[in-house]
Structure formats: C-alpha cells, structure tokens
C-alpha cells in the first residue's frame, strides 16, 4: 500500500542513532524481539550445558559451582530476558496496530522501558564475569543469605531483578493506559482482539505483582549487606517470608509468561480455521478469572513448608479451581477449529501443538495442586517436566506461532514454509523427547538441581534420551535462525493481508508506515476486516492532512543509563549510586522540558 507521501513528519532515518533514540512502538518491538531472541539462544546454550552434564551418570563435564550458576541463570535468562520480553516484543509491535492507534500512550516511556530492560539484562548477565547467582531462580534463603552465598552472585540477582521489574512496571502502566484509552472509533472493549485482552490482563498482573517482589528483594539486599535479619531465624526473622513474598509475585508471573501465548493462539486459530473465534466472551472472561484466581494460589509452591491444614486446603482448592477457566479456553480453541476449513501451515501447526503441549503441562499442574501428591513431587524432575511443558511447550511454542504469523506484517516477508515445517516437527519431537521422560524420572525420585547421579539409580538411559532431545530442540531453533536470515535477504513482497486475517493490523501496509494508519480505521464488528470484506466496505482514502508523530528522543536512553548506574551502587561503590542519581535527575528534567510538538 502506498503511503501518502509528503503528508508525514518524517524522521525515519536509518542508522544506529535512529535506533537509540526511537520512540516508535514498532521499532521498540523489534529491539525487544532481537534482544530477547538473543537471550533465548543464550539461555538455550546454558540448557545444553546442563543437559550435557546430566547425560551420563557421574558426569563431570562442568564444575559443580558452575552447574549451580547455570541452572539458576538458565531460569532467570529464559523467564526475565527471553520469554517475558518476547511477549513484550509482540505487545509493543502489535498493540497500537490492533486497536487502531498511531502509537502507545507514552512513546518515550515505552523507549525507557526497553532501555531499562537492557540495563537490567546487562547487569544480570555480567554476573558471569564476577560471580553468577547460584541459589536457584526463586533464590530461597537461607541458601541465598550471606552465610551460604558469601559472594556477590545473589546481589547481582537482587539488583538485576529490581531493575528488570522497574522496566516491566513502566511497560505495564503504559500498555494498560494505551489499551483503555487509545482505541479506534468503534473498538469497544468487547471487540478487542483476544491478544490485546491478554496484554491488558498481563499489565494489571505486573502492576500489582511486582511490588511484593521488589520488597522481598530489598529485604534480601538489606539482610545481606546492611545487617537486618528479616530472613534469619537465629535473630528472630523467618525465611518463609521470602518464599511468601516471592510467590505472591511468582504465581501471577507464571500467567504473565503464558497469557501472551494464549492470546497469540487465539488470533492464529480462527484465521487458519477460517472461522471466528468460538466463544469470544468465554475466552476473555476465562482470562480474567485466571488472573483473578492467580492471586489466591501462591502458597501451592510451598505446601511442604509446614502450613496448617486450613491454608493448605484453601490454596489447594483455589489451585484446582484455576483448571476450570483454563479448560474453558482449551475447549474454545478446539471449538474454533471444529468444522473449520483448516490450513496447516507452520503458524497453525505451532498453535495446535500449543494446545496439546500446554494441556499436558496443565494436567500435571492440577496433579500437584493436591498437597499430599505435591509432597511427593516437590523439588523433583516431575516439577521440571510440568513447568517446561507449560513454558516451552506452551509459551515458547505459542511465540513461534506468533513469529510465523506476524512475520510478514513486521518485515514484509513470509518465512519459508518448508524450513518452517521442518523446524516445527523437530521442535515438537524435541520438546517431548526432552521433557516427557522427566515425569518418570521425577516420580522415581530424581531431585531437581542435582549435579550428578549414580549409575545404580538407573536414571542413565532417560537422562541420555533427554539430552538428545535437547539437541533436537537446538537444531530446530538453529533452523529458525537460518530461515530468518535467508528470508531477510529476500525482497519484501508480502501483501498487506496474506492470511486473510480479520484484525486491524492487517489493514495497513506490510511493514506498516511509521504512522501506522493513513486513516484511523472505524471498527464496526469484532472481526473488522472480515466484516468490511463481507459488507463491501472500502478503506477510507487519506485526506493528506499532516500527521504529527512524536520526535525521537535520547532522554529515555540517558535516563536508563542513569537508573542502571544508580542500581549497581550497592554491588560496587556508593559513588555509582550518586552518579546515577545525577544522570537520572538530569534525564528527567531534560525529558520534562523536551518539546514533543
């Protein structure tokens, strides 16, 4: 689609500076995507090292200390630096396009979220040059306390997660306001695409769940460095408090990881079934119910800490209750496909695989909702199997579906389908090879986070099997990287709406112009483009009026540098905090006084 040339305020130069100062939600989405996918590969390398160590009994491929750091950093990298920001990449690129807006509510704040995320990622990852955290991703005290973790690793964890939390909070606030306030005419809440609903729900979860984590991190920082005893039972503290505060955040966080994938699948399935989504309101309200109930289940991560019978019963019942809205969603997806004219391309295959793999993970989740069963499974590979089915089989599979589905919109190019389908089958086989035997190993007693195991235990075969599976997954991801670079070398030939999809992002060109829409679309139905197609409604012609876009700004980057320098003070020298505060205050003033007209 030709953009109305000459009507735009252009500052879309290329070059590094334009990327450093961009406030365009699409470019920020791309920055998130590339950064997060790089960390996804880095987290995958860590996983391969872990699997190689566990491949044979009594393995000594890597030292035990490094092994502890690897399983900790693998989890942190995958959760905070890969899956969350990949979700953020989609929500950045797509939210304004899908609701018919020209940008998010606060474009500079959006850039700030990304740069603070980058700062947090650098802080967390740079711990490898000093000492990486090695107490597991949920970092229980007393293991994470000064006594048992005397080095700086845990402090990197504390600072890194605090900075990343700040980034997520800003992004969540921005997207909540954007979705509530910036919708195109006719885009009522009950016409919002399901993906956008999920972004809104995630935003609320993050806004409310991050503070308890921040408080827990601050208390741990003070315990380790400034002499408090919040988590030290010898001086009247209580390590269980860390667990509670962590999981009050941690459980909503689980939904923050999975809901974007659920949103993606809810967009992809109707398009390739050529049918509207079955039970739209049911899916939306099920999402809300999951988010709501998600606040009252956190202690199911802690059944073995000796809670009383009453709290155990309440938390077990609530956890089982969450299976109901989740089941509603699964049946809605199946209902969407039922009777549709299905097109099994790569995007669709990943979405269908999502349903299957996520259901397996969901069912094992209901199993350890029961305290007696959980007592058996706690800290075994059964839990590892469960969480990887949900996070890899669920979240990442859904994300791959989204990448294949929206790639033409993002780049103007269609990914190669033959490579894509090969990647899909390798992925599907690899995920099941790696994670299914973990159920069995867990039930026969293999503990999680164990450095190695003896031959007599008989765990050797399945561990080797899983390691092979992990390399199959790696091959699948490698195929995707090849596919990506090959596709990017081709000419952008994708049409505006190659899939005949119904949502607004397909109404503009591929890739979209900087101002997203020449004319803000008017929404008349829940699937606007299908409605327009069936009612012969043509897109409005641009009037040639001047479209003002926010100018680029380097203050987000500067402020993010200030925040990151400020944050490393407690693990280096207090002078950094002072310097960072000066940069941050200067950045805020410059920001506030910068003209945006």
């Amino acid at each position: 689609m030709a953009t109305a040339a000459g009507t735009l305020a252009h500052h879309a130069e290329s070059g590094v500076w334009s990327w450093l100062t961009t406030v365009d939600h699409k470019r920020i989405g791309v920055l998130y995507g590339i950064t997060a996918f790089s960390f996804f590969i880095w987290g995958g390398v860590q996983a391969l090292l872990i699997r190689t160590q566990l491949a044979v009994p009594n393995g000594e491929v890597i030292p035990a200390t490094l092994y502890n750091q690897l399983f900790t950093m693998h989890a942190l990298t995958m959760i905070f630096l890969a899956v969350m920001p990949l979700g953020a990449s989609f929500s950045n690129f797509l939210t304004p396009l899908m609701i018919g807006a020209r940008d998010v509510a606060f474009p500079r704040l959006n850039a700030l979220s990304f740069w603070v995320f980058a700062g947090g990622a650098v802080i967390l990852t740079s711990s490898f040059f000093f000492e990486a955290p090695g107490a597991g991703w949920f970092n229980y005290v007393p293991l994470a306390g000064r006594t048992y973790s005397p080095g700086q690793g845990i402090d990197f964890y504390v600072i890194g997660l605090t900075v990343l939390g700040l980034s997520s909070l800003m992004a969540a606030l921005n997207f909540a306001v954007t979705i509530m306030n910036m919708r195109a005419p006719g885009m009522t809440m009950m016409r919002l695409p399901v993906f956008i609903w999920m972004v809104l729900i995630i935003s609320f979860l993050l806004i409310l769940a991050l503070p308890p984590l921040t408080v827990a991190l601050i208390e741990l920082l003070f315990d380790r460095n400034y002499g408090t005893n919040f988590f030290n039972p010898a001086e009247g503290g209580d390590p269980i408090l860390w667990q509670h505060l962590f999981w009050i955040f941690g459980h909503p966080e689980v939904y923050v990881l999975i809901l974007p994938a659920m949103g993606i699948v809810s967009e992809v399935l109707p398009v390739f079934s050529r049918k509207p989504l079955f039970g739209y309101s049911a899916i939306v309200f099920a999402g809300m119910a999951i988010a709501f109930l998600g606040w009252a289940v956190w202690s199911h991560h802690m059944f073995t800490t000796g809670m009383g019978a009453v709290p155990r019963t309440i938390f077990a019942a609530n956890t089982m209750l969450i299976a109901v809205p989740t089941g509603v969603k699964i049946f809605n997806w199946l209902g969407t496909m039922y009777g549709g004219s299905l097109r099994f391309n790569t995007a669709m295959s990943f979405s269908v695989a999502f349903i299957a793999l996520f259901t397996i993970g969901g069912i094992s989740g209901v199993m350890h909702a029961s305290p007696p069963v959980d007592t058996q499974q706690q800290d075994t590979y059964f839990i590892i199997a469960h969480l990887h089915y949900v996070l890899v089989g669920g979240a990442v599979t859904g994300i791959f579906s989204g990448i294949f589905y929206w790639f033409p919109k993002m780049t103007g190019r269609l990914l190669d389908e033959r490579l894509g389908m090969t990647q899909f089958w390798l992925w599907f086989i690899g995920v099941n090879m790696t994670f299914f035997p973990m159920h069995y190993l867990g039930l026969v007693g293999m503990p999680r986070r164990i450095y190695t195991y003896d031959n007599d235990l008989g765990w050797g075969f399945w561990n080797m099997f899983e390691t092979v599976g992990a390399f199959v997954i790696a091959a699948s991801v490698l195929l995707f990287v090849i596919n990506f670079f090959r596709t990017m070398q081709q000419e952008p030939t994708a049409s505006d709406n190659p899939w005949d999809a119904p949502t607004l992002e397909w109404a503009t060109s591929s890739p979209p112009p900087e101002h997203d829409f020449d004319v803000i679309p008017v929404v008349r139905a829940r699937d606007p483009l299908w409605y327009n197609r069936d009612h012969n409604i043509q897109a409005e012609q641009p009037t040639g009026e001047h479209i003002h876009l926010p100018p680029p700004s380097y203050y987000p980057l500067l402020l993010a540098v200030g925040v990151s320098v400020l944050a490393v003070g407690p693990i280096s020298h207090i002078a950094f905090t002072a310097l960072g505060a000066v940069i941050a205050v200067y950045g805020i003033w410059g920001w506030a006084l910068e003209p945006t007209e």
Partner: protein
Amino acid sequence: MAHQTQHAAVAQHGLTPRQYIMLGVALTVITVIELAASYIPALTPVLVPILLALTAIKFAAVVGYFMHLRFEDGLLAKVFTSSLILAILILVALAALFWGDYAPGVRAARGDAPASAPAAPKAH
C-alpha cells in the same frame, strides 16, 4: 467515548477553598481523637477497631476529596479500590499465615517451640 469538554467540567468540580479548609480541620480533629484514644486505658480493648475505623475515614476523605476521586470517572475509583483491596487481602492473609500455626516465632511466643526452630518442619 471521549468527552473532553465534559471531562474538563468534571475536573473543575470539587470543593470550595472554604470546604477544603474545613476538611483539613476535620482531619486534624480525627487525628487528635486517635491520639487521645490511645492514651485512655479504658479504651484499650477496643482501641484497634477504633483506630482502624478512624484511619479508614481519614483515608477515604483524602482520597475522595483532596485527590478528587469522588468527582472523577468511576473507572479510576475501581482501579484504585481494587488495588487497595488486594493489598489489604494479601496483608491479612500473610498475617493470618504467620500468626497461625506454622510460624516459629509465634509458636515460641506460645511456648511450643524455641524461636530458632527449623523453619520448615517437614515431618508432620
């Protein structure tokens, strides 16, 4: 949908300066009552509910009038109130969990176990 003009009118709506001062005086008086109540030994058994009630009144007054929430779109009140309720529920749940059966410190207070008891007794 958007009603910029109506919105502006709502934003201007609020108390008169005189009413603001009266509210400030009222809040001060409530604070003095709180303080006085805490010094009267006869009130000790009911002090906690009294303080909670007075705090709630002050809280609601500042949020509703000083922060204009009563004159704003209902959505803002919903957003803020639900966050507040969630915070209170989590606070109450944590207090109940820790004052309940399994917190070692409370068990120590009741004389069941030493304060430095292992935090996670698994053998139940």
